[in-house]
């Protein structure tokens, strides 16, 4: 049988102390908009950071490759 933890929104009885504070803060029916706003903003930033890091590592590889080819080309000349 599943133990009741009382984690439903607004249910303060039989709630572990840590969740009591959470329940007191998050009892608004509009919380989903707040949650969605913060989640989407951080997704946008994470995706942009990922794109930048990919571009940066590709650039670094390209520069290292070109630098490695340059002395070789000088040597042949």
């Amino acid at each position: 049988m599943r133990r009741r933890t009382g984690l439903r929104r607004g249910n303060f009885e039989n709630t572990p102390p840590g969740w009591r504070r959470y329940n007191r803060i998050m009892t608004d029916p509009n919380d989903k908009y707040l949650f969605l706003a913060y989640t989407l903003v951080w997704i946008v930033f994470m995706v942009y950071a990922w794109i930048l890091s990919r571009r940066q590592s590709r650039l670094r590889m390209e520069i290292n490759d070109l630098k490695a080819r340059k002395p070789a080309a000088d040597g042949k000349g």
Partner: protein
Amino acid sequence: MKQNNSMTAHAVLTAVWIVVALYLGFIYAPNEASQGNAYRIMYVHVPSAWAALVAYTVIFIGSVGYIWKRSQFADDLACAAGEVGFVFCCCLLITGPLWAKPIWGVWWVWDPRTTLTFILWLLFVAYVLLRSFFVNPSRAALLAAVVGIIGFVDVPIDYMAIRWWRTQHPQPVIMGGPDSGLPPKMLLALLVGAGAFLCLFFYLLRLRMSMLEARREASRLKRELEDEAQDRPAARQF
């Protein structure tokens, strides 16, 4: 090496600042009586708006610098601010409707402030596309600078829209006159949040500018290799 250390320090500062801003926005700031928790969207919405407006101002400064002095640094500044500003403007347009739906009952209204912000987003889109479509970099820089200067007209009008006209959008809470203002705890959370977003904006701007410089170095190395490859067969003939 020195620049790497300074970038790392900037990244750490930004991360710490964001954590503090999140704590202040979610825990320290009290609930709002009529809006409940939904008002906390303001702690990302307003900082995104300020960062987007600062980004377009940086584009304007860089564009003027490029047209006036043909400075590569000014062009890099404008180019980087265009892309990073676009990201912040997207956040602004995502969080705005998510606040409007529970408070106004609709996702969007075409009042002066929201319309001008949408135009700002279109300007960012135009700027970024213009940069990526042209093959000739100096032509792209010149045209983008013209767009950057003309588009800047939108920024002060957008900022003043809620002061000049009666709009559905809330009236200003900072520098909005004697009747405006926020309780001290909310004001502190908002200002720290704005500082964190501006710190993140300048970090991304520096990162993007360093990448533009690296791209130029790669092009220079490639050109040198091509020149050497062209010279070699000619040298063998003699």
